[in-house]
């Protein structure tokens, strides 16, 4: 670098400092502005969690019906499985034996779920 006696990375350091300052300067200015022109005014309702106008009632820790497990199984079989099947098919010829076996075990588990759901009559409607 002509005319620069310092370390060759000095320019990069200068740019880095500039970039960080560019990010922090507006934040610092906003903080300063808020300090002088935006007095903190917390309150019971302002600090409350729920924000649709109604007061929250009861506890969020409630029990869900265990019967929803069937929906979970069907979701895994038809949604999550499809997401994994596409890359599996695309990379099938290049897979090692171990990876192929692992994938087949995964498929077997989900097929079991499908059979289970079938027997429960989830897949027949109308």
């Amino acid at each position, binding site marked *: 670098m002509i005319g620069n006696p310092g370390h060759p990375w000095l320019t990069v350091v200068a740019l880095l400092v500039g970039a960080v300052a560019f990010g922090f300067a507006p934040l610092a200015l906003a903080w300063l502005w808020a300090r002088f022109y935006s*007095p903190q005014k917390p*309150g019971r309702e302002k600090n409350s969690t729920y924000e649709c106008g109604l007061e929250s009632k009861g506890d969020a820790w409630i029990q869900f019906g265990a019967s929803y497990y069937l929906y979970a199984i069907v979701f895994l079989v038809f949604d999550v499985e499809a997401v994994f099947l596409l890359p599996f098919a695309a990379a099938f010829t290049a897979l090692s034996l171990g990876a192929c076996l692992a994938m087949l075990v995964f498929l077997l588990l989900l097929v079991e779920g499908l059979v289970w759901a079938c027997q429960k009559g989830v897949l027949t409607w109308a």
Partner: protein
Amino acid sequence: MADDLKELKIELSKNGIFTTTLEELYNWGRKNSVWPLTFGLACCAIEMIATTMARYDLARFGAEVFRPSPRQADLIIVSGTVTKKMAPQVVRLYNQMPEPKYVIAMGACAISGGPFRDGYNVLKGIDRYIPVDVHIPGCPPRPEALIHAFMTLQKKIDQQALTGESRPRHLHADLPSEFPVPAYGDHGLEPPANPDVFPARADNPLKVLQ
């Protein structure tokens, strides 16, 4: 700003030099980025929605970003009939908005109860509980009316001072940020009005009416 400073500013602008104050710059930014709350109560809300759409296009005034959370909103447009059951929720939402915040009461119902004024369950104007900046009459007001109200609010924001005794309420650190939320009692809302924002007057016989 003092008059001689104003003259100096005009003189400078004639010579191609633009001067401004921090306060003017701040208010200019604020008035052009007012974010309303996504909040509709009745038929007026349909007009409010129309105002934001392509034909009337509230985005021209920088107010197209309707926020789904009161934490991010600057303006609450009370658009429609406020029932006594809904009034506490309106006040609570207003309380949850950060300062500085503004209120537009849109339509006959929001400003006075409108055609349902004599109904047992209708609040006779939201200005009984929260400070309203702009009232719009009409049933419902057309989108042009809402835009006019919005421009009026912009003018108001533009004139607000940052310092001095005349500065707006939120800049007084000792004044509380929250307004009392009315409760639904045996005979309507209690209290029937917030005396801080809806002062009881001798010539106002409505003050005791629910």
